[in-house]
């Protein structure tokens, strides 16, 4: 999509990532924290795809002779996104399993003791 | 015959044997431990008899590759500096084991720990590799800790932890220093090595520290702090009184050997490897020594616990050793050498006798004794003898070391070598006087005065208690009457250490150069470096009088040397 600068995609990614981090820090419910983490992962995916599409770093080489661009470099971003999604799927399965297990043990998961950033 | 390896590893082997013996066989274990102790003692005598006089080089050298990639060897050797220390170690550990024979709680384990400490001590004295030395230096920490923390008195855990942390804190910086030294040696010599003699060659020809700025001083102090903690010297001594008071009585007994590692380390490592830094640091170390002598003596006066008093008196007495070493005079350094041995013997004897007292009364507070001379005349006589030896009565062994050390300090002082003049020596003399005062006061309160009711049943020494005491007493007397017997084997090595420090680069003896010797005859040639014709068997007396380089007989005059400024800045 010509006309949209790479920076715009990165800005959106950074915004989502920051929002996710803020969410992880301030929310207490594990499920919501987990959703914020998913938000972070999607920000990452967006960043990967933007970089993959624009090939900013290989730009000088690519501009001169396009065949120099290694396919590794071009496909790397998309591959990363696929694997992030696969990992996220497994993570969700396990994570929600843990939340279910703790819920069954306690019938309450909005746990105040679960202060993640306190020792 | 690998005399030294056997000597070092025999006690460890014994400890392992004791360790794998079932816990139920305590008595057999104790017997076995004692046998190992006796065998080690005899083996040490056999080893010492192999040595030849007339050389400062290491003898009976053994070297096995250990960690080739880092240039670390299992290398052992013995010379004059360690001659009596080895003897002292095997003797005192044997006595300590005999003493813990009667221990009720798990005596087998205790004896196994003593054996490990013995290995560590012997290894530290004999190793010719810095990492090996450090390994042995640290190996004695945990066994000693447990010895105190398990078998000690009321405040045992605190005392043990204090000992451990002080020593470890000192030595870990020494480890950093050792590694820095080896890396520097690699820069200077092109090869990574931790070998003492190899690095000393570089130090002797001056290439080791060429153009490194303050590095030498930093590494010197990383060694010096560790050694001062071990000695223990004045500001680092506070582990020692607690340790003496809370440890079972074998603790101080072994410790009276262990603290020699500190002063030994100065002679073995600091003077040869950091010559300029050693000379530069002399004013500071002499001050510490003088303060230690006085401070130890003054604090000892107000102690009522005999073990604490001995601890402080040790601080005081070890000050003389430091004073002797850093006077950089012939007499001073000889005095330091012999004082180490004498202090080991007389403190060993004192601790043993205090142990007998404690075993009878369960306290070392001399106020609870009094008048027991009537019941225990033999104990009283030997005790007095030990005290006289310790305070340095002429014709007993303590006198020789202190006298020579003071002589050296005076000589250095009158030569104007150090800014303080003879002040150190004068201060130190007060220490001798005070030592007589507090020890005799303690003796008087313990043995004279009114015999209290509860002390009526106080028993004199049994024959099996008397025997080890008499051995020590014999050495106290012998060392005073015939000091040359004890001085002669050590003279050249101590001289070498001194010349390694104060000689100019190139004038310094090298351990690795077997064609260099030091003339041993007193007279104008004393301390001259002599080139012998060819590499010969170590130990054959020097015959050639072809003097290649005159040695510097006198301590360096600091005020007139160009590097005096840096020496001041270091403080």
């Amino acid at each position, binding site marked *: *999509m*010509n*006309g*949209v*600068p*790479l*920076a*715009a*995609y*990165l*800005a*959106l990614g*950074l915004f*989502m990532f*920051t929002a*996710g*981090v*803020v*969410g992880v820090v*301030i*929310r*207490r*419910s594990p*499920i*919501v924290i987990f*959703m*914020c983490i*998913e*938000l972070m992962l*999607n920000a990452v995916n*967006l960043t990967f*795809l*933007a970089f*993959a599409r*624009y*090939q*900013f770093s290989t*730009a000088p080489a690519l501009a001169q002779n396009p065949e120099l*661009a290694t396919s590794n470099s*071009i*496909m790397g971003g*998309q*591959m990363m996104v*696929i694997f992030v*999604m*696969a*990992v*996220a*799927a*497994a*993570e*969700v*399965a*396990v994570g*929600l*399993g843990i939340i*279910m*297990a703790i819920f069954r043990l306690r*019938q309450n*998961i909005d746990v105040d003791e679960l202060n993640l950033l306190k020792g | 015959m690998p005399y030294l390896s056997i000597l070092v590893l025999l006690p460890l082997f014994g400890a392992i044997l004791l360790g794998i013996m079932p816990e139920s066989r305590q008595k057999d274990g104790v017997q076995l431990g004692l046998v190992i102790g006796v065998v080690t003692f005899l083996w040490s005598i056999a080893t010492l008899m192999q040595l030849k006089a007339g050389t400062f080089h290491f003898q009976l050298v053994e070297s096995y590759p250990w960690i080739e990639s880092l240039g670390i060897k299992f290398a052992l050797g013995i010379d004059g500096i360690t001659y009596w220390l080895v003897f002292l170690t095997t003797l005192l550990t044997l006595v300590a084991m005999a003493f813990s024979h009667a221990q009720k709680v798990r005596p087998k384990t205790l004896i196994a720990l003593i054996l490990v400490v013995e290995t560590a001590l012997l290894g530290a004295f004999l190793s010719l590799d810095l990492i090996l030395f450090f390994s042995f230096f640290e190996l004695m920490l945990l066994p000693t800790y447990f010895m105190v923390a398990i078998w000690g008195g009321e405040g045992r855990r605190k005392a043990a932890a204090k000992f451990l942390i002080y020593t470890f804190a000192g030595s870990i910086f020494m480890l950093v220093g050792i590694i820095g030294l080896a890396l520097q040696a690699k820069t200077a010599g092109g090869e990574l090595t931790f070998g003492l003699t190899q690095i000393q060659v570089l130090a002797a020809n001056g290439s080791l520290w060429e153009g490194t700025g303050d590095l030498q001083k930093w590494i010197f102090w990383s060694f010096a702090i560790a050694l001062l903690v071990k000695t223990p010297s004045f500001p680092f001594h506070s582990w020692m009184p607690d340790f003496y008071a809370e440890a079972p009585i074998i603790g101080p007994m072994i410790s009276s050997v262990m603290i020699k590692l500190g002063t030994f380390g100065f002679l073995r490592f600091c003077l040869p490897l950091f010559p300029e830094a050693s000379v530069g640091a002399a004013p500071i170390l002499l001050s510490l020594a003088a303060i230690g002598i006085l401070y130890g003596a003054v604090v000892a006066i107000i102690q009522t616990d005999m073990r604490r008093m001995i601890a402080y008196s040790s601080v005081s007495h070890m000050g003389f050793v430091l004073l002797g070493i850093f006077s950089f005079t012939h007499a001073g350094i000889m005095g330091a050498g012999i004082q180490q041995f004498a202090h080991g013997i007389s403190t060993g004897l004192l601790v043993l006798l205090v142990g007998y007292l404690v075993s009878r009364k369960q306290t070392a507070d001399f106020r609870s004794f009094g008048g027991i001379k009537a019941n225990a005349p033999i104990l009283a006589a030997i005790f007095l003898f030990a005290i006289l030896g310790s305070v340095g009565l002429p014709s007993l062994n303590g006198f020789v070391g202190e006298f020579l050390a003071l002589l050296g300090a005076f000589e250095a002082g009158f030569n104007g070598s150090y800014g303080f003049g003879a002040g150190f020596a004068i201060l130190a003399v007060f220490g001798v006087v005070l030592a007589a005062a507090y020890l005799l006061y303690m003796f008087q309160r313990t043995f004279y005065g009114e015999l209290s009711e509860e002390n009526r049943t106080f028993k004199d020494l049994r024959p099996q208690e008397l025997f080890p005491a008499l051995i020590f007493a014999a050495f106290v007397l012998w060392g005073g009457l015939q000091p040359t017997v004890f001085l002669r084997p050590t003279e050249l090595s101590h001289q070498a250490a001194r010349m390694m420090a104060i000689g100019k680069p190139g004038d310094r003896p090298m351990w690795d150069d077997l064609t260099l010797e030091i003339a041993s005859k007193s007279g104008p040639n004393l301390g001259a470096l002599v080139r012998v014709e060819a590499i010969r068997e170590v130990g054959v007396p020097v015959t050639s009088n072809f003097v290649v380089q005159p040695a510097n007989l006198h301590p360096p005059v600091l005020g007139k040397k160009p590097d005096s400024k840096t020496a001041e800045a270091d403080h």
Partner: protein
Amino acid sequence: METSAPLAITPELLLFGGIATAAAMAAVGVVAFNNAVRSALCLVINFFLLAFIYFTLQAETLGIIQIVVYTGAIMVLFLFVIMLLNLGGSGLLQQKGDKRMPVAIALGVVLFGLIASQLLPGLMSVTKPLAPDNFGAPQNVGRALFTQYVIPFEAVSVLLLVGIVGSILLAKRRI
């Protein structure tokens, strides 16, 4: 890079701006809503819009996967668990206002501004996508997956196995 020309306002840019604003608002919604169900719905919207952005980046395959896997599977799982938990204890998923909230938001804004001002200006001039237009086509993605990236692909099978065994282990009712 080339000299930074003033950014031309193109229809594409306007379209992107619209989607991005909506996605960003949805992201804020995830964090800000006190009710977990609403957060989840915001997340779904965000994911959906992201899929659309993927399409505009010519990554069609991934856009589809995004919808199928994330919006379709993962979020459904989330909602399912939320509903399940809601049955057990009502109101537990609500969170009351928190004093830390404004501080954290301020911190987040500052962080965002700081990083963005460092990173992005140098990239403003990069407006020309250099990767071939078909780089996101299924056959290219598939080929890459089974040649260059075959080892991670196989590794992910282990990962999914772990996920399956693990979630069964954690969730099975009887121990």
